[in-house]
């Protein structure tokens, strides 16, 4: 047995912060797993990554979040001792952006550093984005089938209304800007303009080749 010197560990007296962090992680973990429990397809996809750990290290504010896949369960922790398969380091805004977008090409500009199995990140992103929660079934367990159908219809028609209104508004604004305020040319005017530019270009081309021809003929005469 060998006696080891006491470590100089700055984390030794961390108390309130880590408890708070632990509480927040616990709440997110519960929510995340509840969401997962409503989406069996995603749960199966997640299970394929079982044992993998993604570590997200936020530099400002200084935070560490490990996402460990335990079969169909996602476990969150802030423990540095957990070895990650992929580590993503960056500041908070860039990390949130990364989480929400499909686009991974802009990582370099945002100052995000990825070490480890980058393919894992793509898989995680895909799973998160495809999360399709069957809330109707869950709701029907609490309030019954008919009210759920009613809720679904109401939400659906509200959605349709919103979509239609948005479309109308877009058309109206378009009309106003082009036809009434005449801030921008309309599509037909633009097409006319483009056509005349094309015609002009053709005529210039013809003129150019004619000049070249005449030049070469006069050079031959001399």
């Amino acid at each position, binding site marked *: 047995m060998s006696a080891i010197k006491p470590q100089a560990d700055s984390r030794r007296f961390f108390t309130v912060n880590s408890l708070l962090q632990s509480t927040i992680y616990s709440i997110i973990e519960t929510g995340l797993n509840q969401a997962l429990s409503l989406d069996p397809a995603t749960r199966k996809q997640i299970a394929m990554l079982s044992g993998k750990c993604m570590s997200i290290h936020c530099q400002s504010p200084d935070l560490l979040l490990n996402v460990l896949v335990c079969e169909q369960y996602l*476990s969150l922790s802030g*423990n540095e001792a957990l070895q990650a398969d992929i580590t993503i380091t960056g500041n908070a805004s860039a990390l949130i952006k990364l989480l929400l977008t499909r686009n991974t090409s802009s990582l370099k500009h945002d100052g995000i550093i990825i070490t480890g199995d980058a393919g894992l990140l793509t898989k995680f992103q895909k799973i998160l984005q495809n999360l399709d929660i069957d809330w109707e079934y869950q709701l029907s367990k609490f309030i019954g089938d008919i009210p759920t159908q009613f809720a679904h219809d109401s939400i659906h028609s509200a959605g349709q209304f919103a979509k239609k209104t948005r479309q109308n508004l877009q058309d109206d604004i378009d009309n106003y800007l082009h036809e009434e305020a005449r801030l921008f040319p309309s599509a037909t005017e633009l097409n006319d303009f483009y056509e005349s530019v094309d015609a002009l270009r053709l005529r210039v081309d013809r003129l150019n080749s004619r000049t070249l021809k005449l030049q070469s003929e006069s050079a031959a005469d001399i």
Partner: protein
Amino acid sequence: MSNDSQSKTTHFGYRQVAVEDKADLVGEVFHSVAKKYDLMNDVMSLGTHRIIKRFTVELSALRPGMKVLDLAGGTGDFSLLFSPLVGSQGQVILADINESMLRVGRDRIIDKGKSGNISYTLANAEQLPFTPDTFDCICIAYGLRNVTDKQAALNSMFEMTAPGGRVLILEFSKPVNPLLGKAYDVYSALWPKAGQLITGDGESYQYLVESIRMHPDQETLKQMMLEAGFENCEYHNVMGGICAIHVGHKTTSR
């Protein structure tokens, strides 16, 4: 303060009792409080024990497929938290020296339908009945205080930990700030009364308060862990040292 296995007596709270009697006396305490144990924990810790437990589990660094021993696990709080982490390929063993506590824990786990990877063992922490080098993590929470020979328990835990594994000890400890210490003394003096009201057994909680005072402080416990063979031992004070989580690692067998 160290263990008193050499002498014929040991402490039971503030009392001195014969070494062979302590386990039975502690047993009686837990037989009596088993049913209301979780409720009393909420009362005494003002609900914070849940967060502290969660934090301890985060320190376990468990992954699917690992084996974990929830020693002195009593009502199974930790086993329930470990179970999803190690998954169906892993194993959680809930061990307690007290039959009543183990029974409450087992019933609770079965009632929650989480029994898949959890097994139960009635075991004495001083002489663990497992194959050496088995567990990736051994966790003893609020249990070491009640063990008669703490060094023997640490030695036994070291033996059962797999190389590369770790041990987590969550226990009441010594508040770092003297002012907080005073406030805590005053507050904990109320526990026997609360215990009398809730469980009808104030004496058991009198023992609890006394046993917390008699428990080794952070540095002493760390030295005992090093003595047992654990390496890279460190501790995290929780709530200003009212509790402390000691983490020790085993790299190789002795």
